[in-house]
């Protein structure tokens, strides 16, 4: 009988620059198993991929071909992930996926900021069923400086030409306290900003409306 495999490395490597390295060739499950991986990424991976997929799909493949797990791509964007190339260059994951930047070389690993007390996050989606791919989803990450927002990012799926993308509107939260009123205003602005493509699961109007509802939901979770 085969022997049990040794337990996987339980921690992600912290780089000298203070970022966590998500090894591109490692399976997604590495992140779920790691004790220092951000809970947001772990939750989103569990939501988006089966256990089997998390074992047989590499971190890089899932990041670069996010059609099977758009929420995962949104989470990486909201978490401010960057992508590392064998040329030594790095690029913002969101900008790379948006094709704003084209670094030299082949992508290798992903770098993410570690979990921090000053970071709060929220996730919301709508789907036919709990495990179905989201029709629209939103992932919000807010960095605080004291009681004010230092930076806020909301990445959405199902409302853009691309699988996932960051909304611009949340940048207006910087420097302000995060309040329900501010969140309302940002959510409304995100709905305006959204540029959805319709399909049988959601019209343009519906997707735009969901962009507002789900952005609000995700940001409200950051209030807690």
């Amino acid at each position: 009988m085969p022997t049990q495999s040794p337990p996987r490395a339980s921690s992600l490597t912290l780089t000298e620059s203070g970022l966590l390295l998500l090894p591109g060739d490692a399976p997604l499950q590495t992140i779920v198993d790691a004790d220092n991986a951000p809970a947001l990424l772990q939750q989103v991976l569990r939501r988006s991929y089966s256990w089997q997929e998390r074992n047989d799909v590499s971190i890089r493949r899932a990041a670069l071909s996010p059609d099977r797990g758009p929420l995962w791509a949104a989470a990486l964007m909201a978490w401010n992930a960057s992508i590392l190339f064998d040329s030594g260059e790095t690029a913002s994951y969101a900008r790379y996926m948006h094709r704003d930047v084209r670094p030299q070389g082949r992508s290798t690993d992903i770098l993410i900021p570690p979990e921090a007390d000053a970071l709060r996050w929220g996730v919301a989606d709508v789907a036919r069923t709990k495990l179905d791919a989201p029709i629209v989803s939103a992932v919000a990450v807010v960095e605080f400086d004291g009681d004010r927002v230092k930076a806020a990012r909301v990445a959405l799926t199902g409302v853009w030409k691309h699988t996932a993308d960051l909304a611009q509107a949340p940048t207006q939260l910087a420097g302000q306290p995060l309040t329900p009123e501010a969140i309302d205003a940002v959510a409304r602005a995100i709905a305006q900003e959204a540029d959805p493509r319709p399909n049988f699961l959601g019209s343009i109007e519906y997707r735009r409306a969901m962009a507002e509802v789900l952005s609000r939901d995700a940001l409200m979770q950051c209030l807690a």
Partner: protein
Amino acid sequence: MRGTPTQITLTVNGQPQTWTVGSRDMLLHVLREHKYFSVKQGCDTGDCGICTVLVDGEPVRSCMTRIVDVAGKSILTTEGLSAHGEIHPIQEAFIETGGAQCGFCTPGKIMTAKALLDKNPNPTVEEVREAMSGVLCRCTGYVRTNDAVLRAARKLQGEETGPLQPLRFHLHEGETVEDVELPEAYYRRNGDLDPLPPVVITPPDMPETTVVGAAETKVDARKLVLGRPVYAFDKYIDGMLYGALLTSPHAHARIIDIDTSAAEALPGVHAVLTYKNVPRVKHATGGQSPPQPPPYDQVMFDNKVRHVGDRVAAVAAETPELAKKALRLIKVEYEVLPHVIDPMEAMQPGAPVIHDEDDTVGIYDPERNIVHHIEAEVGDVDKAFAEADFIYEGEYYTPKQQHVHLEPHVTLTWWDENDRLVIYTSTQVPFHLRRMVAPLIGVEPKHIRVVKPRIGGGFGNKQEMILEDVCAMLTVRTGKPVRMEYSRTDEFYSSRSSHPNIVRYKVGVKGDKVTVAELYLVGDTGAYGTHGLTVQMVGGLKGLSLYNPPNARFISDVVYTNQPPTGAFRGYGATQAQYGFEVIMEEIAEQLGLDVVQFKGKNVLKVGETMYLAEKLGEGREGYPQDLTTSGMAECTRIGLEATDFYAKRKAYAKQTGRYRKGIGFANTMHGSGIAGLDMAAATIKMWDDGTFFLTIGATDIGTGSDTILGQIAAEVLGVPLEDVIVYSSDTDFTPYDTGAYASSTTYISGGAVRKAALKVRQQILDFAALMWELDSTEGLVLRDRKVIAPDGRELTLWDIGMTSTHQMEQRQIMATASHMSYVSPPPAAASFAEVTVDTWTGQVTVDRFFVAADIGRVINPVTAAGQVEGGVLQAMGFVMSEEMVFDKDGKLVNATIKDYHPYLVDDAPPIDVVFVETNEETGPFGAKSVAELAMDGAAPAIVSAVHNATGVWVRKLPLYPERVWRAIRGQS
């Protein structure tokens, strides 16, 4: 081999292996090539998870894992779990709980469970649900598979467990279901998700039985959990050719020319079939009793294609890759024609005419694409509407649902040593196939043998000739064995689906009595008629009989469109039609301020009443008069009301104002038990000299457990345990005739045949015992516990009788065959209750709980019966919530993958609880009716009712996509 040949070493099930593989070969295919047949394929695109194996202890999808990436690693397949001949506790748990129905997903489930329990020996039910969600199962509803994993955890820690037992309540004289106190867990007050055993409530007058009614484990369970190669999918023959189909990229086109010369010239290609070289024999592909319902609108290959995925040509070649290459070399010149996808548009003047050929007869109105126009009426409908106090009209829509059985269609054909053509195929209708294939391939039926091995699910889609005619023709043309199989994409495009329906009801009420109803159904049959007539007639009968108004009119148009053809699908029209009637009944009750349960209860068909439309609406012909002889509907409703706390919740939920709102809904449903006057089954039982029995049946176990329950019926009559009855099904050479596994007929019709055959054998045994004892008659002789017992206490074992009758005295074979049919089709009945949460801001509906109380007559096996209900409910939940084949303007499917189509996964599913309220249906074997299709009917109306309770709106179009619910809440259509 794909890619560069590479040598790798790895360990498989503890054995070191060195294999030469292709650098792009996937682990799944290499394992199967090396005869690890437990590793199944449900999609090959990473969507179903049934190909799961463990790589260094971690579950992976073997279809998505390159073989070269597992070099040096340790692979575990299901074969490796029981490598030393001892069954593993996880496998045992799947047997004990009924967790393996068709069994095609079972190895994938078992391997995932192994990985989970290795890491987490004490998982919670939530952890089990999450871990197991990567493996799709289409049969079980996941209740018993989750149960199996939890039980396996206990077994691995040393706990002794036996087969899952139901919770039984035997009512005493004077007691009713109101005296039943269900344990607290069945109320699910805390929202827990634990799988609970089914409940069986037995009325006082039910005759006692021993084997019938027992929770016997399935007779085929062991081989299924061991992952043995028992399916057509697992069969390969040395020297066989691989058949492949070229299908249409167009929704509607004429084939101007087809050039196959390049394909034929390819070395290794043995045959190419097109409309040019096969006979044009008009036929229908639905597996139904002769004369098959018209129209005969199909030929093996035509010079016109009528849907994307329609057949264009077939090849047989020495490898699958060659076959695909040959298909690419076929040049087809199409004249693309206008097409029509919507059935209402298809009926408009000027719409593209889909069947303009002059050799199809029996189309009602070819110019308007109306295949059948059905009308049936009882009473005086117009007068009754004129006299009604209140008339209500409603229109409902049901989607086109795909079966998604996990074993695809697979057929192998070959000439045997006696020059007989063997068709080894994944079918529900072996006997119909034999008859149907013969004229198409020019071989007399007597030279054809159809063998049905284990079937990896069918749900109606294998009640159809899909690949058999082409595969057989390729064998006829080449003289060689040929194997054909559908891919998952082919299943979506080129097999069958349910009939989408527009369902319009007009109902008249006098006081609180439904006095009149009119039902108009538009059934979209797709490109061919196959089951179009019969599905819609069943819809009319079952839809209008549930509340059985004395004045009723049924009208249906069955319409061709350029969609893939529809066919038989579990529920067969009743699911669609009853959905509409159930919802409109609740809408009426609401309008009239009536209690919906009482209103339905007052109007529902009752014992002693005649189903008014039964005589007019048979299946494709006139039917037979039907009176309801048994019904536990009222008792089922009572139990459900209590277990769900229905009234209190309804009241509380009606007042909600927040974003998330809960709702509870209720529905009555009824089905049938076989097709009255049409279905026929036969069974043969012989006694071996050791006093055990061999039961052969034509009935087709497609994962339902029918072999088991038919064995139980035989064992009960013969006074032996089930283990003394070996059950074999089905092979047209060696088993007697049976119409097949459809129309909920197996328990009732095939069970009737088995009982009759067993009674004959029983009489022969008693006669022989009387002979041995030199008695004048068999009076007073009792057959039980493997013995014949005389009134004076003397005993003869069956072994004694078998040995003596075979070898010593008046030597004879104790054996009998019996046939059974019925002019009645007693309806099983169910009360279904759904609880939901609606997010009113997004429209997302989550089903939190489902409860079914069902009267299926005598419950022959509570675990297999509950499995049918649980699985049927979840399949129906897909129909309500997520599953719909959606087409773009070109007639191409936009969701032809399991992932995009999205059947329910483990953690999508709510807990489903099942209570059986037994009745004793005198016409059924030991009082049994049927179960398989009934389970399909309740989910839609119960869930829609619950959404209404939560939100106050009616969503009449299925599935309940979030946007549809969201719009309904906002008053938009």
